[in-house]
C-alpha cells in the first residue's frame, strides 16, 4: 500500500492525544487513591489542552486524505457497518470529552457529588474522565479496525493491528506526559515514566511479533487465482495502461526493498531502545527536558513505523498490476 502522509499523521497524532489524556486521568486516579498528592488545576487544564490540540491536528491531517473534504460530515452515516464511520464519530466525542475534562478542572468542578465506600469521591471531572477513557479506548479500537477490518489485506488483518495501535498510542502519550510532568517538576513524572516503560516494552514485543508474522505470511491469492488460469507460470505482460493508473499509485509504495529494510530498522531503534535509554538517563540526571526530546525522537520513529505498516501490506489487486507495457 502507498503510505499517505495524511493518514500517518492522523493515526499517530490522535494516538498520542488519546494516550496523553489517559495519562492525565491515570494521574488523577493515583491522587484519588492517595498514592500521590493531588495535582494542580493548571496541570490538568494545560495537559488536556495539549491532548486536545494533538487530536485536532490529527483531525486536520485526515482532511488532506479526502478528495471532497467539504462533504466530510456525511461520514457519520454508516456507523452500523463501517469502522471508518465509527472512527469519525468517536474522534469528535473524544475531543469533546477531553475538552470537557480540562474545562471541568479549570472551572474547579471538583466538589464530590457523592462518596462511594467512604473514600471514592465521585466528582464531575472523574465522571467525564471515565467517559473519555472509555471513548479513547473505543477510538483506538476503531482506528485500528479500519485497517484490521479489510478482509484480504492479510498483513493488517490480525489482532496485532489493534494491540499495536493501542500500545503505540499509550506509549507516545505517556512519554509526552512524562516530559510534561518532568518539565513542570511534577511527582507524576516517575509514575508516567514507569508506565511508559511497561507500554513501550509491550509494544515492542507485540510489534516484533507482528513483523515476524508478516514476514512469514503466505498469500492466499496468486496470479493464477486472479485470472483463473491453472498453470505454474503465468506472467503479466500488459496492464491495460502505459503510464500507470490509480491502481499503480495507490497500492504500491514505490520504494526499493533496501529502503523498506532501512525504515524497518530505523523505527525499531527509534521507537524502543533510544527513548528507553534517554528516559533512563533523564531519571538518573533529573533532567527536565530530556523526556521531551525523547518524545520527539519516538514520534519520528512512530511515523516511520506507520509508514512501514502501510508499505508492508501487499494488496491482492497488485496481482493485476505487475507489469507496465
Amino acid at each position: 500500500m502507498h503510505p499517505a502522509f495524511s493518514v500517518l499523521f492522523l493515526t499517530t497524532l490522535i494516538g498520542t492525544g488519546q494516550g496523553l489524556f489517559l495519562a492525565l486521568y491515570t494521574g488523577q486516579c493515583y491522587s484519588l487513591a492517595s498514592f500521590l498528592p493531588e495535582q494542580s488545576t493548571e496541570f490538568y487544564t494545560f495537559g488536556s489542552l495539549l491532548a486536545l490540540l494533538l487530536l485536532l491536528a490529527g483531525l486536520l491531517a485526515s482532511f488532506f486524505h479526502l478528495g471532497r473534504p467539504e462533504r466530510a460530515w456525511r461520514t457519520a452515516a454508516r456507523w452500523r457497518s463501517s469502522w471508518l464511520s465509527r472512527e469519525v464519530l468517536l474522534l469528535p466525542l473524544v475531543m469533546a470529552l477531553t475538552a470537557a475534562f480540562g474545562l471541568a478542572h479549570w472551572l474547579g468542578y471538583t466538589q464530590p457529588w457523592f462518596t462511594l465506600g467512604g473514600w471514592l469521591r465521585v466528582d464531575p471531572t472523574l465522571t467525564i474522565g471515565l467517559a473519555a477513557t472509555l471513548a479513547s479506548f473505543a477510538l483506538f479500537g476503531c482506528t485500528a479496525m479500519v485497517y484490521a477490518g479489510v478482509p484480504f489485506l492479510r498483513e493488517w488483518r490480525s489482532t496485532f493491528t489493534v494491540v499495536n495501535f493501542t500500545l503505540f498510542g499509550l506509549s507516545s502519550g505517556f512519554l509526552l506526559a512524562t516530559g510534561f510532568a518532568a518539565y513542570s517538576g511534577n511527582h507524576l513524572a516517575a509514575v508516567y515514566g514507569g508506565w511508559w516503560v511497561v507500554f513501550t516494552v509491550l509494544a515492542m514485543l507485540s510489534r516484533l511479533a507482528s513483523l515476524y508474522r508478516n514476514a512469514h505470511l503466505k498469500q492466499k491469492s496468486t496470479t493464477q487465482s486472479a485470472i483463473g488460469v491453472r498453470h505454474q507460470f503465468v506472467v503479466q505482460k500488459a496492464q491495460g495502461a502505459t503510464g500507470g493508473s490509480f491502481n499503480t499509485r495507490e497500492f504500491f509504495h514505490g520504494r526499493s526493498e533496501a529502503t523498506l529494510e532501512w525504515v524497518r530498522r530505523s523505527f525499531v531503534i527509534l521507537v524502543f531502545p533510544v527513548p528507553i535509554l534517554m528516559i533512563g538517563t533523564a531519571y538518573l540526571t533529573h533532567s527536565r527536558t530530556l523526556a521531551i526530546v525523547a518524545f520527539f525522537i519516538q514520534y519520528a520513529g512512530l511515523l516511520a513505523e506507520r509508514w512501514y505498516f502501510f508499505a508492508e501490506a501487499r494488496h491482492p489487486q497488485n496481482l493485476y498490476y505487475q507489469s507496465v507495457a
Partner: protein
Amino acid sequence: MTQMALVIDLNVCVGCHACVTSCKQWNTSGWAGPLVDQNPYDADPTGTFFNRVQTFEVGTFPDTETVHFPKSCLHCEEPPCVPVCPTGASYKRADNGIVLVDYDKCIGCRYCSWACPYGAREFDEKQRVMKKCTLCIDRISDQTLPERERRPACVMACPTSARLFGDVHDPDSEVSIAIRERGGYQLLPECGTQPANHYLPRRKTRMYIHPEELTRVDNPLLKEEFIGDEGDETLDDVAW
C-alpha cells in the same frame, strides 16, 4: 432477485481494446462522466477507466500462450466495498444487483478501493470521487432505446462477442447457460466476494491422431493368430 452481470469468454477475446474505448467514450460523455485523463498525449499519460484489458502470458517459451483479460467491476454479490463506505455513497441496487457510487455523496476517502481485491475502483483526479463500472446503468435502464441497444457499451462494441450480458440469477438466461455449460468461473474465489461477473475459460480444439490411423496395418487389433503356409492348397491355387 435479478443480478445483472457480464460473462467474458477468454477463448474468443482477441485483446483489441474495443470494449475499453467504447466504455470510455460512452461513460465520459454520459451520466458517469467525465472520465478525465491527465497528460493524454504526453509522457506518463493516465486517467480514469472503468474497464481495462490486460495481457498475461501463460507458460514458458516456446510453449506459451497469450491470454487477453478484460477486467472491470465484477458487481459482487457480497461486495466488500459497500459496507466499508462511511457515507453510504457505495451501494448495491436491490432491483438489479449493480454496485454503484453516488458521486454526490462520495467524499473520496478511497477506503472502498482498499476493500476491493480486484482493483476495480479508480479515483477520479478531476472530480475527486471514486468511480467504477456502472454496467452502463444509463443505457440498460433507458426505455427510449430500442431493446437490442439496452446493453452495456462494451458488450455492443465487442467484435468477437466475447462479452455476454444478462441476469445470472435467471437459470435460463444466455449468461447462466454459458456459465453452467461452458465452465464459467469467478475471480479470486478465496476472497469470498461472490463476483457476479464470470469468465469462460480458454478451450483448445485438439485432435488426437494415433499412428495406426496414418499407416494402414493388417489386422490392427491382432484378433487372430497368423496361420502359416503349410503347403496345402490355398484359395490362390485354385484355378478359376
